[in-house]
């Protein structure tokens, strides 16, 4: 029962990833692409947690924490850059 639900959750996250990627490709302005980048990284944090769940190794959650920190840093840096050129 729980395995089926985990598979369903992975499928839903994969579809969400594809849709955010479509916005990353299409996005008319720079701001749209940065928003899509933000969503892609947050969806992949859920993906990392699902990988940790499938492999059963708790050490993978540390990678999720580092990943969240670095994606946040990237979004802040690029927003600051397009706002006033660092």
């Amino acid at each position: 029962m729980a395995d089926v639900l985990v598979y369903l959750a992975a499928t839903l996250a994969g579809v969400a990833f594809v849709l955010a990627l479509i916005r990353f490709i299409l996005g008319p302005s720079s701001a749209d692409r940065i928003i899509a980048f933000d969503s892609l990284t947050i969806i992949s944090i859920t993906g990392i947690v699902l990988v940790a769940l499938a492999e059963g190794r708790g050490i993978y959650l540390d990678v999720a924490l580092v990943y969240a920190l670095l994606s946040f840093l990237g979004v802040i840096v690029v927003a600051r850059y397009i706002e006033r050129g660092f």
Partner: protein
Amino acid sequence: MSSLLAVVGGILLVGGTAFLLFGAIGLVRMPDAYNRLQAGTKTTTLGTLLSLAGVACLHPEWALKLLLIGIFLLFTNPLSSQVLARAAHRIGVKKAPQTVVDRLEEDLAEKDLGARP
């Protein structure tokens, strides 16, 4: 007992990823950058937190690390969305015709009016 916890965890996980999917659909279908920001950051915050709660139900011994990731996301995600919205407003991203309320514009106009005399 533990199987009940597993089912609850699975349902929370599916609910969280469903929120991620709704957010991504909104990201594709919304008309302009500000609405996409609204759809793309708020729903993904809730979706990720629900998914982390679901995994914490499935593996109770990971709960502390998952709580740490959740608190971190809860603090950083609205901050990055606010910074992005301000940057998009300042570089002059166009609004769609459906978007009518712009409080930042009103505030800036008010400040200009007050500073002029």
